């Protein structure tokens, strides 16, 4: 049963990342909001915490990120934009740590459950962290279009790959349960 809960949690996290990386806008309304992605991840943390207690420490940060994304979503819906570079920096820092730790926890769980996805999760974690850091730097990326496009392509590939690996991880856990 525990493993089943774990598998369900990993599925929630996979869908959470899907929402974080996909946007579908109807005018100013993003019907795949990021804040919903964080809520799904937050719901998954308790089950993760049974295997990796440090995952529970991510809860306050996850709540903050969900609130921040909620504010951004609301401002976008109103057709406005939020100025506040200071808050953006803080959000980026929290985001960096949150996702790094979450993916590290998932990798550790994969190792303890003898699932083959550990190495891929760690690699994706590293690439994702570096890319987010690069995008957060005060570089005029518009002036380096080819570089920016290249990085965006890599980011999209990583995002798709990550979701794929997480769903695969979930299947691996389900396979272990059946056995």
């Amino acid at each position, binding site marked *: 049963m525990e493993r089943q809960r774990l598998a369900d949690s990993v599925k929630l996290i996979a869908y959470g990342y899907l929402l974080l990386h996909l946007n579908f806008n109807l005018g100013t309304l993003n019907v795949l909001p990021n804040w919903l992605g964080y809520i799904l991840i937050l719901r998954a943390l308790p089950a993760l915490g049974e295997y990796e207690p440090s995952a529970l420490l991510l809860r306050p940060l996850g709540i903050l990120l969900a609130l921040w994304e909620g504010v951004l979503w609301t401002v976008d819906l109103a057709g406005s934009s939020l100025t506040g570079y200071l808050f953006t*920096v803080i959000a980026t820092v929290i985001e960096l*740590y949150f996702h790094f730790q979450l993916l590290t926890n998932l990798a550790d769980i994969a190792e303890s459950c003898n699932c083959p996805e550990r190495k891929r999760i760690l690699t994706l974690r590293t690439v994702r962290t570096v890319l987010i*850091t690069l995008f*957060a730097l*005060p570089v005029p990326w518009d002036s380096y279009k080819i570089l920016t496009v290249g990085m965006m392509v890599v980011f999209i590939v990583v995002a798709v790959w990550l979701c794929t690996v997480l769903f695969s991880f979930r299947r691996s856990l389900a396979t272990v349960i059946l056995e």
Partner: protein
Amino acid sequence: MTDIWAFLLQTLSASLVAALLMVVKWLLGDQLSPRWQYGVWSVLALRIVLPVWMTGKYTLLPLPLWLETVKGVVENSLDSVYSSAYAPIRIRFPVPWVGGMPKSATDWIFAIYAAGVLAALLWYMVSYGRLRLLLRHGSSVSEEQQMQIDTVCEQYSLRPCRAVTVAGLPSAFVCGVLRPVLAIPAAIEIDDKVLLHELLHLRYFDAAQSVVWSVFRAIHWCNPFLQCVFNRIGNDMEQLCDQRVLERLEGEQRREYGGILLSMVNERYPRASGTTSLSNGGKNIARRIASIARFKKYPKGMELVSVCIAVVLLCASLFGTYTSGIEVGSGNRNDDWGFARAMASARLARCTTIAGALDTYAKGIMYANGVYVAAASPLSKQEALAKEMVYNAKRDNGAYDYLQVGPESLNQTGYGIYNLKKLPDGGYEALLVFTADTLLTEDGKGCREDESGDLYTGVVAYPVKVSREDAWVVTENGGIQVYPISSGEYFDITQRGSSLLPFLGTYKAVGKSGTVTTQVQSIYTVDNTIENANQFAFWGSTSFDSTVKPDAEFASCTVNTESKYIFGGSAGERDALKSVGLQMVEMKNADSSPEFPDVQLYSNVSGSDNSGVSWSNRTILPDWDGTVSCGSGTGWSGNMESSPAELLTGYAARIFWNGEPKETLVLKEVVSSGTAAAG
């Protein structure tokens, strides 16, 4: 820092960075290792050391704009020798420097602050000196103590230093940077772990770091928030040392180490620059013991995210990402703070490119906006411009930013930059060209009319010079030139140019068949087009972007040439002519032979291509005036910081009589700039 405003900018910026780091540390709690918790303070150290505004962009908050605004208001009524209401705050070095006797209240405040820095540094030096004197009177350690020190050094691969015992010391400490001394309380047995702690301070040069933080404390002695932050930094340094100790200990030893700290809760501890001590106060020790209880070895993978977070914080704190641009504000003549903020933004948002300076200045002229003009003018003119705007606002009961440059009322539909030319001193000269729907009469009391009573429209040209000072600035370079145009005439000042306006250069050649003259005119543009989508149709409209662009680049350059051939043959040769043709090519190299592409010369047909070749053929009629004209327009786009319209080496002309080439002439520059060609 040479005035109080520079200090305020530096210390408030450092406070902002410190607050950001405190918030991040609070949010992340103990998720990141003590190494990161202490190491991230290097971001603050760099912020303190590096002058604020060195990149010209705001970091985190627009503190430079806020302070510049306040300075503008405060210093306007003072007679400071250190600062000026109209000179922007500049920080060349992050330490105070008093340059003369103080005069105004702000000067005195700065002088007192600078004296405080000296006093603080002196106090640190005296404290350190007294401590070293005390240690000099200490006794050498006993053989057993020396053996204990050597054993600890060998066990943990640490570097030993000279050790002394001093009576009355509450705890052990290391003192000194270049010649460190380990001071041990006399007649008290010292645990190995205490020695390990102090020797680890020595290994990682914590005493030297302590000196650096002390200097920062002295520079920011009057900032209570930063003083608290520096205390926190000291505690983080001790926690890092605890982490290093615990990483080297095993099991029960760690618990014993915590016990040692607990025993020091009520003890005094030496506080002086260049010293480190195991004990740092009861409250801090309680926090350290809690950390010890949470001790863990942080996994290797955490280094990556630690570094990434530090990089993001570093870049955000030091390099900045934005400028708020030029803020015109309310315009309300009673809004003194609004005016001060607008002028402050003009002093800070300087023009970084030639195109940006010309765009900003041109829009200042076009909209009669003195703030825009100030942003593109030398800083030495700020005061005069501000006073003129204040005078205008009071006189006309109008907006505080009203400033008319020149007498004519200009159309607000755009402008052209004509004949941009690089000067030997590295600056540029150009003509800013505008259109006007009406032109004033000479007495300025009415509008000019033509013979039929229709109002003249016109073109108004402002000769300007662009030069590099603190940024690219524009100054007037001659009198305003007005060119009336009869109603019904029109030309696009951003595209085709006009022979009404001066030329960039003139080329001429005289041959047996006649004289050929070519005049060159260049037009640069900045992209100020706004696309206005029409929601009811597939097409939209465009409008002119009134926002100034201090960082603009040139979007395009058009070089127009007008060539004229004047017949110079005999009367008999003229009578024999049925047609006369002219073909012009550019010559980029004076030593090369001109290459004329084949061209079909049809009767009374003119043409040109993108490579600068133009041609024209005239059928000769009895009333022929003896001239044949042709012209071309060549466009450039891309990086045009160095003008591509620099005068070419020359032009070459091929003259055709009756369809056959008669003569080839190479034209050379004869006039570098001038008014329209005669004839």
